[in-house]
């Protein structure tokens, strides 16, 4: 795989009252598997259905009901593992994680503690052109989601919606390789991008389809490197886990707050207590949810209702063969093949559909020009109107045609923007629009010379000034453009003005 070279960024340093501190962050990202049916039941996963309408007897944990594994969910998790360059464990197993809660009808979550489906992998987290952090993935396991408890519908009663109960999740566990709040957000962004490329998770954070538990600790400069050399967690500080974050902004704010909270404790001579915390976005604070002592004893044990999961290497290979080109490779190819900047390649590859659009525009054309038009005009306009690339009123063919008109000199860049506007609001064939509306660029030298001469003749004072200060020649160009309704070839006008003024 072709990847762009990079160097790792410096870790974020926070100056405490007494000394400098670094952050060490590990994440557990829960990604809802994109599948029509739940992990162990045939019930639908559709979001936004009437409460308790997507619930099978299995999901409701009726007596005697048994889980049956949805093979497609496993395929999706394998695909995800392959996309994160991870090892796929041909034998894995499901365990029960036991705890009582009304939105967990079985009284246990079926998960994979002892033998996860996916082993070690890695994610390249791009932070700036040429700067990236390689974050190691420890494991990915497949598990059931819980339902939803609703406490604000009635003053005295709580309600439970089991629609989400049993939906398949992938828990993607990173190593503590993330070194700052921005990196954490960039890591989630990158994971989300890869998952969306793979089609294994829609990445919709608002609906809770992608959410993160963030483990944060602080350490003195140098300690992290000793941890990496020795693997000894003793070099790191005590971590706190911030649960259930579903916004990039909150992830950063929570980490920032949590790091400063821990620094203040340590600098005051205290000790950070290992615990689970929640982020309160209105106050911008984390607060304790439960301490280590209060932590549930989940009494994990192998789920006796399910046999160990055995998959075949050939099946994994088949999935690998259908893997799409992933962001890192695509980005590298865009830089190499189209000559676009790494920054532009980043923008172009953020979404698979956008990258495909770009490639359709760039095919047989100048890559840079295509990138320019796609990013600045099209993406800019789409963003402004909150439209997705798939909803773009201007097709790749139309945009390509427009670029061709510029390349052949038939229209200027400025006119092209007008044509783009017409394409956006009215549609049509760009060449036809230019033709029908008389927007073709004037390159006839005779006509241009006449226009230049007319402007010079009418403005003797300006001529004097321009001869003294050649920078003012641009004013004449502007006047000529105005006089020709913008259709004059600006370069040609420029040349004629310079010649006539003797510059």
């Amino acid at each position: 795989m072709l990847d762009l070279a990079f160097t790792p960024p410096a870790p974020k340093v926070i100056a405490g009252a007494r000394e400098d501190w670094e952050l060490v962050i590990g994440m557990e990202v829960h990604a809802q598997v994109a599948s029509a049916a739940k992990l162990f039941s045939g019930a639908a996963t559709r979001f936004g259905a009437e409460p308790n309408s997507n619930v099978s007897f299995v999901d409701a944990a009726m007596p005697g009901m048994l889980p049956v594994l949805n093979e497609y969910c496993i395929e999706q998790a394998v695909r995800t593992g392959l996309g994160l360059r991870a090892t796929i464990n041909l034998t894995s197993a499901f365990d029960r994680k036991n705890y009582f809660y009304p939105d967990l009808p079985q009284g246990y979550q079926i998960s994979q503690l002892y033998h996860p489906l996916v082993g070690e992998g890695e994610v390249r987290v791009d932070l700036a052109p040429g700067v990236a952090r390689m974050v190691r993935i420890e494991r990915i396991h497949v598990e059931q989601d819980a339902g939803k408890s609703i406490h604000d519908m009635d003053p005295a009663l709580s309600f439970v919606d089991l629609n989400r109960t049993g939906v398949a999740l992938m828990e993607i566990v990173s190593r503590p390789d993330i070194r700052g709040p921005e990196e954490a957000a960039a890591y989630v962004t990158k994971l989300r991008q890869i998952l969306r490329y793979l089609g294994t998770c829609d990445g919709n954070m608002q609906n809770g389809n992608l959410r993160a538990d963030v483990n944060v600790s602080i350490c003195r400069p140098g300690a992290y490197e000793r941890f990496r050399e020795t693997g000894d967690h003793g070099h790191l500080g005590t971590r706190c886990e911030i649960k259930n974050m579903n916004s990039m902004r909150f992830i950063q704010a929570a980490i920032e707050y949590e790091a400063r909270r821990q620094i203040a404790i340590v600098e005051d001579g205290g000790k950070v207590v290992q615990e689970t915390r929640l982020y309160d976005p209105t106050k911008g604070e984390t607060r304790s949810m439960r301490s280590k002592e209060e932590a549930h004893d989940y009494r994990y044990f192998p789920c006796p209702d399910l046999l160990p999961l055995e998959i075949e290497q050939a099946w994994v290979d088949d999935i690998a063969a259908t893997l799409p080109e992933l962001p890192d490779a695509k980005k590298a190819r865009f830089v190499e093949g189209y000559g676009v900047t790494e920054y532009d390649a980043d923008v172009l590859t953020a979404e698979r559909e956008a990258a495909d659009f770009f490639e359709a525009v760039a095919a047989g054309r100048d890559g840079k020009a295509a990138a320019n038009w796609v990013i600045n005009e099209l993406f800019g306009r789409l963003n402004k109107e909150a439209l997705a690339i798939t909803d773009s009123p201007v097709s790749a063919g139309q945009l390509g045609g427009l670029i061709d008109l510029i390349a052949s000199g038939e229209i200027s860049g400025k006119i092209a923007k007008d044509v783009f506007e017409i394409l956006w609001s009215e549609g049509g064939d760009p060449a036809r629009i230019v033709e029908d509306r008389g927007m073709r660029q004037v390159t006839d030298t005779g006509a241009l010379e006449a226009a230049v001469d007319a402007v010079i003749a009418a403005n003797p004072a300006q001529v004097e000034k321009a001869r003294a200060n050649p920078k003012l020649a641009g004013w004449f160009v502007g006047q000529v453009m105005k006089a020709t309704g913008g259709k004059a070839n600006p370069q040609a006008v420029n040349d004629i003005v310079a010649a006539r003024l003797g510059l």
Partner: protein
Amino acid sequence: MSDLNDLSISDARDALRRGDFTAAELTAACLTAMEGAGALNAYAHPTPDIAQARAAAADDRLRTGDAPAMCGIPIGIKDLFCTEGVASQAASRILQGFRPPYESTVSRQLRDAGAVMLGKLNMDEFAMGSSNETSVYGPAVNPWKVDDRRLTPGGSSGGSAAAVAAGLCLGATGTDTGGSIRQPAAFTGTVGLKPTYGRCSRWGIVAFASSLDQAGPMTRTVRDAAIMLGAMAGHDPRDSTSADMAVPDFEAALTGDIRGKRIGIPTEYRMDGMPEEIEALWARGADWLRAAGAEVVDISLPHTKYALPAYYVIAPAEASSNLARYDGVRYGHRAALAQGDGITEMYEKTRAEGFGPEVQRRVMVGTYVLSAGFYDAYYNRARKVRTLIKRDFDLAFEAGVDAILTPTTPSAAFGLGEMAQVDPVQMYLNDIFTVPVNMAGLPGIAVPAGMDAQGLPLGLQLIGRPWEEGPLLALADVLETAAGFVSRPGKWW
């Protein structure tokens, strides 16, 4: 001819096909017998209306000639099986009022084969018990008795065993996690077969210990067990642990010819303090098989003594998790709450009221053995022991043994209430010969083989190779014939 309700399934099947009587008449005989047997407390929920409707449907099928073996045969269903629209509460208060909107695979297969459900049978609560005394319905009573002592029919399938022994049905479903089919069969002079784990679907059966639970038939003859198993067994895609294996014609396996079969007698089952009459019966059983042409050899199953302790770690561990769903949130019993009670109080009160003492004991034991810090010492160790027990059997079979002969229980039926004051472990010892079979996932069958000095039935157990219920039934058939056990309890109820 004896009363219709006392017929064997095979005889009734043949008679129904001949048109000697109708399924409706046969069912009516059973329903009448049930009405007069309240003292046995075998049926927790009789379903006479369903029985009559299904009998009528069976008669229609019999008339058209589309009559599988179980067509028109009246049976009882253990309360552990979920039956559509019919109370299914695992003999527990916590499932009071629960009527499942679905039918367990095994009972559905029986229904589809034309069997007539007479009602739901008493059992130990959540199948946890060996005497039927943990039932919320009160104990089923053994139709066998000594003087005026009321005896246990065993457990947990005590209602099934009592009903079969007393002629309140022609056969019954049971489930067996550590001996719950075979021990009651032995106590009531009936036949009880626990199939290979995975032979019958667990779908729709209230789970006790999922890796050990297995449904099986309880009948008056070995042939009946073969017939009924044929209707109960089969692959079910809704149970991942159900085996995708063809179901052979078990009845056809009853050839009467067991010449050349090797029968193992495990040394380790010779327990200190085992009653002499049981020892003698065991030896007699070996003689009968030898006389029929089998070869009897001593074998060793060295890890046998660890089976019971390991079982009482694994089964409660799984149960503690399986029973977590009974929380009062969605179905069954929910405790009345006081002002200010929250979800924790709801759980605690509901489960304290809903579960009886034995279930609570096992949930607590199971929770304990899975807790952080104890998991390796108990649960993991028990799993390793289980592997060793299974290997003991594997080695014996590899060495050429076809089946293993043991007593079914260390004693005959005991009196109801007699175990109430003793250590629960005394009760657990009832399962000493049956538990290893569940731990290894093997088929085992209890065959009535004799009487003790008080005139109570005693059983022998045959343990077979995995998936070889056919050959196992063939041996059991020969054993049954040789034993000539034809006694029925005198009707006192």
